[in-house]
């Protein structure tokens, strides 16, 4: 704050300083808040290999079920 200045100028300077500080604060907040929301993502060590998207309708299961049961009976060694 500078002395020997008219009151109006001092007030304006204060307000200007306030404004600048507010802007600085907002800027800081703008930078800090997203950082606080950062999420650390780490890829798993082994590749994920899940083959569960098998394209089959239940009506096909109905149709094949008997043959599948027979196959298991006929070749028990591999099942």
């Amino acid at each position, binding site marked *: 704050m500078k002395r020997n200045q008219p009151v109006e100028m001092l007030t304006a300077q204060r307000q200007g300083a306030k404004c600048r500080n507010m802007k600085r604060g907002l800027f800081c907040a703008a930078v800090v808040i997203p950082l606080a929301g950062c999420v650390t993502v780490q890829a798993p060590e082994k590749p994920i290999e*899940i*083959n*569960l998207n*098998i*394209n*089959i*309708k*239940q009506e*096909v*299961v*109905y*149709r*094949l*079920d008997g*043959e*599948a*049961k027979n*196959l*298991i009976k*006929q*070749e*028990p*060694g*591999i*099942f």
Partner: protein
Amino acid sequence: MNRTFIAALAVAAVTVASPALAQRDPAYAAARAAGQVGEKPDGYLGAVGNQGAAIEAMVRDINIKRKAAYTRQVADGGATIEQFAFTTGCNLIAQTDPGEKYMTPSGTWATRGAGAPTRDGRCL
């Protein structure tokens, strides 16, 4: 040809004619009982976690034979290998003994209990 020879021939014929893999290999049976290998929903066998080279090789060998069997079954073009394998997988999981391992639809290994196993909704 005398009778002994004919009898021996008959025995040999029966032995050759019987299914090539009538019973589970003892190593396979032991691995199943120990929960080292388990049934997967896609109709193939899987090693439960890291089981070492011997078990992995056995699993690979069995799955090759299973795939060959599935392929023969769909040779008439009625379904895809994957569809037949899935249907067989439904049955295989249903036929697991308590204590054996199987994979649930979510991809996690589970131990078969006394009740019904957790299977894909399309299984019968």
